[in-house]
């Protein structure tokens, strides 16, 4: 008990240089991003210093624009479907990877994780070529397909630690104590993997919601939000409302990923 506590404090002892490095890292990473919400409240059509004054005008303008609502609705539709499908596939994959003796298991995991490191543009072009060869018209369905490829590795990566920590004798213990398959799933399996499922849903939804490259290649006539923003960049007078829209997306994404992280680690800490 005390031995464990001791090593814990040793490892968790604050490390000055590392802290400074982390702070600089975060500043470099996020300060440019913070300019976006800053200028979205700026009472000027031009993005330049000095700031002119505070306004909610650009947000109000967004609110009244039908195309924004349509794009938002498209993104939510695609995001929800992608989140559901990739999480279901992720559960199946994570369960298979952790539970059964599969030959070439590590090769399989690498294969599933591949889209994380292959540039989206390659997948985008490849899918575009394939789909147009097959004569499939571009639509939100093709965007969904592209997003599934991008999101599946994230789903698997989120769910794997859950299933790895899942001792198969848990389910047997439940059966042993008199519960059939359905009750065992409901009382043991589900509660134990539930936080992972929620985290995966939130994370994959966010990734799909923000995704641009796949959407760029695979969108037909219905634009997703990032595509809509891209379209608006051609018009300088629209730029402040693009900033406002981007700020909203930023905010929502941050919240979702934050929740996903918290939920995803629930109960895993000292298990």
């Amino acid at each position, binding site marked *: *008990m005390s031995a464990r506590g001791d090593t814990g404090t040793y490892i968790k002892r604050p490390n000055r240089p590392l802290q400074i490095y982390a702070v600089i890292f975060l500043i470099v990473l996020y300060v440019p991003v913070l300019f976006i919400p800053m200028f979205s409240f700026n009472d000027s059509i031009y993005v330049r210093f000095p700031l002119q004054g505070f306004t909610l005008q650009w947000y109000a303008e967004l609110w009244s624009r039908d195309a924004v609502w349509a794009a938002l609705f498209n993104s939510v539709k695609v995001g929800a479907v992608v989140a559901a499908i990739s999480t279901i596939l992720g559960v199946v994959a994570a369960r298979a990877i952790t539970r059964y003796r599969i030959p070439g298991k590590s090769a399989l995991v690498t294969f599933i994780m591949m889209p994380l490191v292959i540039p989206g543009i390659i997948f985008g072009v490849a899918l575009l070529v394939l789909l147009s060869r097959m004569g499939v018209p571009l639509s939100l369905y093709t965007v969904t397909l592209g997003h599934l490829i991008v999101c599946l590795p994230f789903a698997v990566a989120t769910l794997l630690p859950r299933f790895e920590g899942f*001792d198969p*004798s*848990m389910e*047997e*213990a*439940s*059966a*042993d*104590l*008199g*519960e*059939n398959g359905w*009750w065992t799933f409901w*009382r*043991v399996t589900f*509660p*134990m993997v539930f936080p992972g499922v929620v985290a995966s849903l939130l994370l994959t939804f966010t990734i799909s919601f923000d995704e641009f490259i796949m959407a760029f290649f695979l969108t037909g006539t219905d634009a997703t939000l990032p595509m809509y923003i891209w379209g608006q960049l051609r018009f300088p007078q629209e730029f402040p409302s693009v900033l406002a829209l981007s700020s909203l997306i930023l905010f929502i994404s941050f919240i979702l990923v934050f929740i996903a992280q918290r939920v995803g680690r629930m*109960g895993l800490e*000292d*298990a």
Partner: protein
Amino acid sequence: MKNDAFISIRNVNKYFGSFQAIDNVNMDIGEGEFFSLLGASGCGKTTLLRMLAGFESTSDGEILIDGQPSADVPPHHRPVNMVFQSYAIFPHLNVADNIAYGLRKHKLSKPQKQEMVDEMLELIKLPGYGKRKANELSGGQRQRIALARALILKPKVLLLDEPLGALDKQLREQMQLELRALQRQVGITFVFVTHDQEEALTLSDRIAVMSGGKVLQVDTPEGLYEAPKTREVASFIGNMNFFQGTVRRNGSSEAAIETQGLGSIPISLEKVTKPDGAPVQVALRPEKFELLEEEPTGGHFVSAKMDKTAYLGERSHYYVTLDGKSEPVAVSSTNQFVARDDDRWKEGEPVWLSWSPEAVVVLDAD
């Protein structure tokens, strides 16, 4: 075969693919018995236990529990409960909910459940632990929770798969005593798996010694120790000295075994069934020998030479060499009357080795 057997295992085989994990096992386990499966890792103990629990099917043969064939009964309908090697405590539930897990179908009121859980916590000596989270518990505590979770259902048989294997030595010895006391208290049949022969000897009413999927011998701890039936069992339980020998029968009333190293040993006729001239092995435990300084005046003895000594505090181990036997003979004796260093045996000294023919075990030759 006993008729009051509570569990009957009949001609059971188990194959995983072409690998045979259980090889024609036959045994009966009585009601209220503390029965152990003892054997080295990989000999099929867990597999046999999982077949009793219903997690594995039998490839061949049948298992009767309380007189009922069990082949088609799924785990959740069997009157047996298991304590898993990993304990399998549910991490998302607190201690009380873990213990009460199996009570859902019993349709009890909340206070009734509470009372049963408290009773169990009392029984496993963890009163007041109900609200603790599962991951705040030590190994020994988890082990007790796993016990309570099974015992609260009042099973007819409790299966325990190396439940003390993960605990350190001191805690393990304490838990052995508690487990034995608990079993007496609740009177449930325990089928206990272990690879630790001392643990099996301490706890069990009867022990099945397993090796390579086979059951070598089923007997009481005393029976296994004093009258092993094969060389494998004899050397698995404790230490044993083996001597090659030949049966000598003169007439029908007495027999003797001519051994290499111990000379001729008279043996009662019920111990030897072999004909005159048959090769056998004679086995004697190290503590059945007595070391003497002077040549004894009677009984059975040979002269020997002290080869190696090892002082272990309470007792000492010795290796002595005999004429006519190449390997040294292990001898063990207590240090009860040995106080000073110069009382002890010195290496290289001549000694006398005496034994009683009653302690001799006769085994088939290899």
